[in-house]
């Protein structure tokens, strides 16, 4: 009898392990929803112009520090906006990273949207000048349930892609 109880106890232990390793199911998005993943890492323009050093200035520098131009380190924050039709999905002004504000600004957002037809627009301004976006893209996409649409900025091509 004791042995039977022992077997039952181990069976209960195995059941707990087996069940909790897969159940309850986790619904990440519902059956009629999809995801728009919005990501990029981009450095804003420098806050000032680079200046070419004179020969005297270069001579005054140690040999290993003689670069021809002197550029300000700090960069502009980046304004960014993501829309689906009239609905604003994301809008922010992203500060440059780093303690000298000289690094890339980056963003990553996972946005749940209803499946169906979407007119997606993305725009970015990296020069700190008010007005139109310097980089922008738009696309009409029919998003199937569960699909992951990626909106990202390609640093090499210097343009947004929506796919």
């Amino acid at each position: 009898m004791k042995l039977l109880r022992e077997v039952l106890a181990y069976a209960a232990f195995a059941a707990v392990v087996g069940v909790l390793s897969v159940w309850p199911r986790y619904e990440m998005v519902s059956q009629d929803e999809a995801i728009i993943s919005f990501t990029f890492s981009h450095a804003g323009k420098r806050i000032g112009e680079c200046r070419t050093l004179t020969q005297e200035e270069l001579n005054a520098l140690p040999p290993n520090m003689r670069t021809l131009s002197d550029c300000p380190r700090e960069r502009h924050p980046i304004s960014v906006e993501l829309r689906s039709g009239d609905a604003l999905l994301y809008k922010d002004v992203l500060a440059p990273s780093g303690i000298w504000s000289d690094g890339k600004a980056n963003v990553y957002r996972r946005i749940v949207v209803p499946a169906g037809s979407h007119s997606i627009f993305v725009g970015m301004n990296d020069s700190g000048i008010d007005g139109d976006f310097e980089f922008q893209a738009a696309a009409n996409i029919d998003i199937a349930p569960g699909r992951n649409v990626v909106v990202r900025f390609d640093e090499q091509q210097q343009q947004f892609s929506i796919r």
Partner: protein
Amino acid sequence: MIERVHSIGRGVFRLLRRPFSRAFDSEQNPLNYLGALTVFFLWIILVSGIWLLIFFRTSVSAAFDSVEYLTREQWYLGGVMRSLHRYASDAAIITIFLHVIKEFVFDRYRSVRWFNWVTGIPLVWIVFPLGITGYWLVWDELAQYVAISSAELIDRIPIFTDSMAGNFMTADVLSDRFFTLMAFLHLIGLPIFLVFGIWLHVFRLNGPRINPPRRMMAAVLLCLLVLSVVYPAVSHEAANMAQTTQVLRLDWFYLHVFPLIQSWSPGWVWVLLIGISSVMTIAPWAPPAKELQPAVVDLDNCNGCKRCVDDCPFGAVEMVPRTDGLSYSHEAAVDSSLCVSCGLCVGACPTATPFRSRSALIPGIDLPDRSAAEIRNNIIEQAAPASAEPRVLVFGCKDDREAGKLRRAGANVITVNCMGHLQPSYFDFVLSRNHADGILLLGCQDGNCNYRLGAAWTEQRIARERDPRLRKRTDTTKIALSWQAPWSDFTGAVATFEAFAATLREPPVATGVLTS
């Protein structure tokens, strides 16, 4: 306040006690071997993991296929190994969780035990990433979810200039080198820290229990094997960056926090995790345990025999070169920062004998708060005939809540810090000097002794297997051992006492260990 929390926790363990004590003998009860069982699960994980490694391919395109090969085509071995690997990992989380809760509710984390408690916290921080990186390697839809969510969590740490989660948006940006990194972390990096961490966790303990009994190991392994065959672990579909899996079969043992990353935010999840860890880290001092009077060495009576060093459960006694000019080479020295005042060193000291009549009873090592002489005086004072016959003298642990009940049942009860506090010559003293007809020792069962080794040392000393041994002239049928689980409600102690008293009324037939 904290005592109230401990009390509620002990109530929960009492609920667990019933089914477990019905199913298992004390020495086979998994609740007594939670730490050791965790180590055993790690062995299973290691062995099964080596098999998986032989066939696993660390690249984006081949990882999933290699795991599928193991699961489907080599199901009879690779599939079983994969399931064992996973289920042993899950089981380890259960034993770790219960181990932490048990040590907390039975107040085994404060005082000198803070070190074992605090060094256990980084172990938890290693075990979870170890399991989580394992899920990455499968590179199925679950891995995709785990990878993106983990990356979102890591991105919240304000030291990275690029978003790690951005690397999982499209298949073309994910490189094989990333898998190599994950494999390194899962197979080498984290396991090395884990092994070192376990060593650190137990290295202050004398004789840590690393392995559970063989029968229990066999039973647990068989249990997981059956589960692996009946309900094998399988993958989701292969990872697809263009798609988001809507419903996932999460392993809640490891991934319970992941849904919070989406429903709260990565920042709040960090607050939760760091908050829990911080609270646990300061728990030994919030509030601190009562100050304990450490054991003291009396050099005039210490002959440097080293038994106290061998028996101390926390390594608080060490032998140092003699300082008083006596002819012995060494003397005992107590590290008061490690001493828990359990008295096991006194129980091991050959000079802690109550038979001394010409000199004061001052053993080589003693507890100022509960001296050997004081215990002898208690025995002599309580030798007067009790209301019940036969006269049973009960030695109970100091925290024993049953002492009052036993007193009402007619027993003389003397409390000691731990059963191992009593040197065996005390039993001889009680019986040979006719201070009682029988002795009942009411202590915590092995594996649950508040001072780890008290029950084991007591049994071995009475069985004459460990020094100082019980004298041969002492009739062991007049000594009963009643070991109780700490979560026990001790309802059986009175019955045990009465059963033992009944045996004393009749001629003894055999030595027995009474349990309730």
